[in-house]
């Protein structure tokens, strides 16, 4: 088709936004990642996995500023990329025993791994697309939040990212670890020739990500200090508390590695494989907040799973989007399937149908799942009906009435465990976490207020599901997809047209948001606090034991090391 000329028409309307796949179609992920997790583990995100990158990048910045180079991104890129490319190679050539626990997170490894069998390594190897590699992609902002770098701000006179005195101290620590290597002595300055395998292996023995644990006389004490004390004091305190919490819970279920899935269960129920986790008194508050986080994850999963249900079943009903589906028809389908469900499985069926009052359904659930323990107590598991079991049962593409009931059940269980007025009062100040998301991203407080009214009004399961699907799935999806139109294109999976729904063929994945377990557990391990959480029989180091017992480790290492750089910056 051509664009219109000077005529008045008629013109057929053209699509204004291209189709896009998108993710987080209800916009709930940001509540977990930007609000709850940001409060629990400030300065650490999903992709900032290895603490030694804080050292390495500070070191590269420091070396860059030590040279007479233009202070521009282009100049830094030219300086930075060959050195990070070789570091990526080195971290894969590392032969040290500590490397056994380093399984991922080496920047650029997807490309460098493919040529790791070579004898020599080219610093010009295009190891990653992003001009500033892992620093630009992942670590830059968190290093700034912990006070190791200042970011480019021409208005403030910062023409390019620069290490702070504290950053320079960490850089110096790293330099003391690698300064004696052949790579640093003979190649680092110019970094313009291929580097032999053994040279990089030797460098890795001193400077690999995994070797931080052994760098007690180099950058390890500095990074421990940074992670436990730097950044905004309140943030450092919360980060410290989370590491302490990790050291606490990881002593449970020693026979198994702690995976993210097991972490979620331990965090939420404090019971796994028949073992109980009882937080130390000083850890209880942090454990409670992580429990609320995981409650939010179950809560969000329920909505996302209902969204996927509507999407896939809608596509079926609409002949893959070719016809509209009247909302009435959708409700009919739901009602009919609810009336013919096998949700109870081996449990006695109390007569769960579309017309069953939601409150009765909740009572039946809590007749099986013991929700009487308080907000800080252990929550007994139930093999068939607790939140995680229901989640696991529905983490697939099977869109039947059982899934609808399971998701409603999750919402009802979370309600009674944490979100009734009484339980919210028990949470004290932490109840504020339940309000995160507000009206825009389905805050738990607001949702459960509305749910409570409907339960009190004796609404049926079908009525509750219809309400949830309309107001918190369909409208929410429309709102989020509308907001994404200019940036991500048309990510609608369905949209109301009058009293009908129009469906658009596309996938409908559903999963939890990343809990940062991988990053946090790796950092705890590589900071020398505990053996790998990915292994059985975890052991806390002396530092780890001290942190667990006292809630903190001595500070001052960075301050002392940075003193000379502070003097330098003052021109003394």
């Amino acid at each position, binding site marked *: 088709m051509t664009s219109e000329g000077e005529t008045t028409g008629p013109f057929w309307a053209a699509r204004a936004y291209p189709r896009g796949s998108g993710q987080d179609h209800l916009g709930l992920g940001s509540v977990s990642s930007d609000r709850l997790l940001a409060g629990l583990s400030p300065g650490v995100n999903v992709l900032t996995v290895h603490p030694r990158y804080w050292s390495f990048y500070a070191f590269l910045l420091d070396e860059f500023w030590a040279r007479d180079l233009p202070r521009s991104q282009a100049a830094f890129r030219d300086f930075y990329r060959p050195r990070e490319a070789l570091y990526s190679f080195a971290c894969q050539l590392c032969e040290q025993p500590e490397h056994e626990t380093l399984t991922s997170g080496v920047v650029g490894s997807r490309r460098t791994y493919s040529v790791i069998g070579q004898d020599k390594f080219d610093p010009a190897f295009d190891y990653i697309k992003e001009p500033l590699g892992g620093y630009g992609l992942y670590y830059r902002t968190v290093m700034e939040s912990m006070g190791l770098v200042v970011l480019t701000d021409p*208005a403030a006179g910062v023409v390019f990212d620069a290490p702070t005195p504290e950053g320079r101290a960490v850089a110096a620590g790293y330099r003391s670890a690698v300064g004696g290597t052949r790579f640093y002595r003979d190649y680092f300055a110019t970094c313009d020739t291929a580097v032999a395998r053994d040279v990089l292996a030797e460098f890795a023995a001193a400077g690999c990500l995994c070797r931080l644990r052994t760098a007690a006389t180099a950058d390890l004490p500095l990074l421990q200090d940074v992670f436990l004390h730097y950044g905004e004091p309140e943030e450092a305190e919360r980060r410290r508390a989370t590491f302490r919490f990790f050291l606490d819970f990881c002593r449970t279920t020693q026979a198994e590695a702690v995976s993210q899935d097991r972490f979620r269960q331990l965090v939420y129920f404090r019971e796994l494989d028949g073992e109980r986790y009882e937080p130390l008194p000083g850890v209880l508050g942090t454990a409670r907040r992580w429990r609320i986080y995981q409650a939010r994850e179950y809560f969000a999963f329920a909505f996302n799973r209902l969204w996927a249900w509507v999407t896939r079943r809608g596509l079926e009903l609409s002949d893959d989007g070719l016809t509209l589906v009247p909302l009435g028809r959708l409700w009919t389908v739901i009602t009919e399937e609810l009336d013919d469900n096998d949700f109870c499985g081996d449990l006695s069926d109390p007569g769960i149908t579309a017309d069953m009052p939601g409150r009765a359904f909740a009572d039946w659930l809590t007749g099986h799942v013991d929700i009487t323990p308080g907000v800080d107590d252990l929550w007994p598991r139930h093999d068939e009906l607790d939140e995680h079991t229901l989640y696991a049962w529905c983490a697939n593409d099977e869109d039947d009435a059982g899934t609808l009931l399971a998701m409603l059940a999750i919402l009802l269980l979370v309600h009674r465990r944490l979100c009734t007025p009484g339980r919210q009062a028990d949470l004290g100040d932490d109840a504020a976490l339940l309000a995160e998301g507000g009206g825009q991203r389905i805050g738990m407080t607001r949702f459960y207020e509305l749910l409570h009214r409907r339960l009190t009004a004796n609404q049926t399961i079908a009525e509750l599901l219809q309400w949830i699907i309309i107001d918190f799935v369909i409208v929410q999806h429309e709102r989020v997809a509308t907001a994404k139109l200019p940036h991500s294109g048309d990510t609608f999976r369905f949209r109301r047209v009058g009293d009908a729904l129009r469906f658009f063929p596309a996938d409908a994945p559903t999963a939890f948001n990343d809990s940062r377990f991988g990053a946090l557990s790796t950092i705890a391990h590589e900071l020398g606090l505990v053996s790998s959480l990915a292994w059985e029989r975890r052991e806390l180091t002396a530092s780890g034991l001290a942190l667990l017992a006292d809630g903190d480790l001595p500070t001052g290492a960075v301050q002392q090391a940075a003193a000379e750089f502070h003097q330098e910056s003052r021109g003394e």
Partner: protein
Amino acid sequence: MSDVPVIVVPEQIQGSWTNLVVLTYSAHLDFFETHLLRQLSRVPNRIVLADDRRLADQFATAARSGQRLGQANRTYLAAPIRNPWAAHAKAVLLTTSTAGRLLVGSGNLGPDGYAEPGELWHRYTYDDGIGEHVDVFAAVRSLIDGIATRGWLDPAAVAGLTRAWSSTPWLPPRPAARQPLHHNLDTPLIEAITAAVDGPISLLTVHTPFYDEDVATLGQLLDRLRPERLRVLLTPDTSVDGERLAAVVSRPGTAVSLDRVGVADAPTAFLHAKIIHVVGNKREVLVTGSPNLSRRALLLPAATGNVELAVIETRPPGGFASLYTPLTVQPLSASESLTLTFRGGGEKAPTDALALLYSELRGNVLTLVFTTATGPGVPELFFPDGTALLALTAEGDGTVFRFRLADTDVERLTRGGRVDVRAPGCAEGAEPEPTWPYHVDALRGRMERVGDNRLLMSMGALPHTDNDLFALLRQLEQTLIFDPETAWKVAGARAAAHAGEEGDAERERVRWEEIDWERLYRHPRYRGYQRSRGPDGEPTSEIELILSSIAARLNGVTGSPTAQEQDDDLGAGSEPDDADGEKQRPRGLSVSTRTRMAYNRLAVRFTVALHDTVFQEKLGPTLTVRNVVILGHILRELLRDDVIDPGRAITAQLASWSFLWGPDKLVASLTGEERAAAEQVLTEVRARQTTLRALCELTGYDVDDELRRAVRDQTQELLLSPTLGLDQRLLALTAPDARQAAALVANLRYLAGDYTDREIIEQMAAHWGIGTTSVAWERGKVQRSTGQGCPPRQSEVEVDLIRVQEPIAGLTVERAGTDLVRLASLLIVTGVDLDYVRIRYAQGRDVAYWDAVAGEGICYVGSDEKELTELRPEFPAWWQRLDDLDGRAAPAVARCSPARSHQRPSALV
């Protein structure tokens, strides 16, 4: 399909219009707020008129699901059309005082109606210079006015429309000639359709997504037109009873085909277009627009049916052949036709139930209007979080209630969003009814912007409110390309998107060096710099608009809206003058931190960009000259109004003057046509005069030492700049009055000669080639003539003298005399009252002094001695330039001059 014209509707709904009026059945206000409003930020009067029940549904859903719709009825009107049945017309009207754009079609406001295939639109444009289609626009106005006249609009909507028509003087209330738009306010549309058809009908093609339950309307159409052949286009979503359809169309003398239709490129698109295509022997008639094949759409007038708007167009045979090109049309199987079902179709019966009609916020008074009398008592009001509003007073007659609210509640309300209302007597536990009050003052305040791009046009003088100041900044950001950031926004976004593929975290990062300059040069914003005036001399681009405004300002025209423009706002004088709830900002008084910081950042960015010579070269002289003129003017106004940090603004000013007038800088580097073009701009906006005046205004600021030195050095440079060309003529142009001229020169003298005692030491130390630590001022006692009595008496007095603590190589009495000349000149330049100068050298009793009162001096060096009877100062070239300007002869001899203290001269008179 390559020859079929298409339209991307959102692209049509943007630009610097004054008014937007949308007619729609359903209104997806979230889409409107998050997408269209962004591109309509400069349209002050924005009105969405939607079907009342659909709009109420939208608001109810928003309230239920926590959607804020914070701009609804605050920065735009979202008003219901309360006709008895559906308000189904669909149009988008954009106007200014001289131009218009009109879309009429089948799409409702929302992603489906505006952003998807499956809708049909007509587009009309009007321009004062051409005058075409004015009757089409008038037809839409007559529909809207007719709706208002029938009392189907809320008063706030009527006021908004009145403002729209007042600011669109070319738009008559009704068409004066035949035109293709038809509404059904008075006459059913079928009459207009029938009237357009002439002669026997060979083929009638119809497609509408909704039919009557009994398909009677199609039957009536067939009765009237009696086509030889009927083609009914159907989709699986067509709301029609298949069996009844078959029965209705089955009639003697008419061959019928039921065809399945779809959009070829978008098989899942909902074909929402309405088509009645009548093919006769002599001509064809095409009916498009809003009407479905339903009784209330086609057969009834608006009083008993819907409100509909159709385009009935007539062309010669074959004139609409391309209409079907984007469609797939194939025969419908018998089994498919049987699956077609009637699903209702948006025609809901009126209701008399008690409901909240609307609410209005005027000043501190919130008014609620109900459909019928409520029970006894007063409604309760809540914010969305359940907090009750505090009513200081409440009065009502059962239908209309007025609450005078506490200031805090009003302040919260003015941020937008809904109020929940519980009517008296409503059932216990019933959900409150949400309402988005019309913010009458704020909406009217927006309309005070009438006068297309008022802010940009009025840039000669800064706006009077903080919000407008902030808005002006945003408009400048959207108009100018003055630094890498603005260039990036024009030409870097695509690169940024690519850069973010590996992770969103860094997507916002900007790589100046990767700006796609070719793309930038093609961009309309860039080209806007290069457009010249239109044939009538009027500005044709926003850049020209700004320059024109600045020129007007400098010509003594305020640049504020004219009296005529102010009169355009019919509510003037009857309402508080607050704009968006904000008090008028008296000059020099409070400006929000947000605005101040934003302008500070602008100044810094401008400064940094001016120093980026590579970037400026890339931009080219056309842009850079205009940027310096525009931003230089703004900086001066901001400084005057105390809206910006003086340090940052002055730094930026100095950078801009150096950039513009400096040796080998912008103007000096231009030759030929480029120079002539630049000079034209500089002359039009009086850039030279402005520079001098702005420079002189810097005498009023206490700035830090570094900046003070920079101002001094820049002043000296400008005084001698050949491109600035300060001479008597320029002085006269800048300061026509002699006293003004004298004050201006005095100011320049002050700025250029602003040396501190310390700097005089530095100058002298440099002259001697020794370190500044070896030279110092000190107080000393000397024997001096008192200047009284005859012969004058000698007495011991304290004077300031310079002590040199390091031997001066090659010091002689002649050299010492030169030292005195230099020191005296410096002191005169700095404005110090030249009374007595003395230099005490390091060696022995070496000394030199000049007593201006006595008119004598002496130099002692070693055993040599030289008496001085005169001291001829040697002034720098800039000083002499100033002397030339004020006609003052340089003092031949440094004698005691009339007292001149080192104080700032008075400002320009």
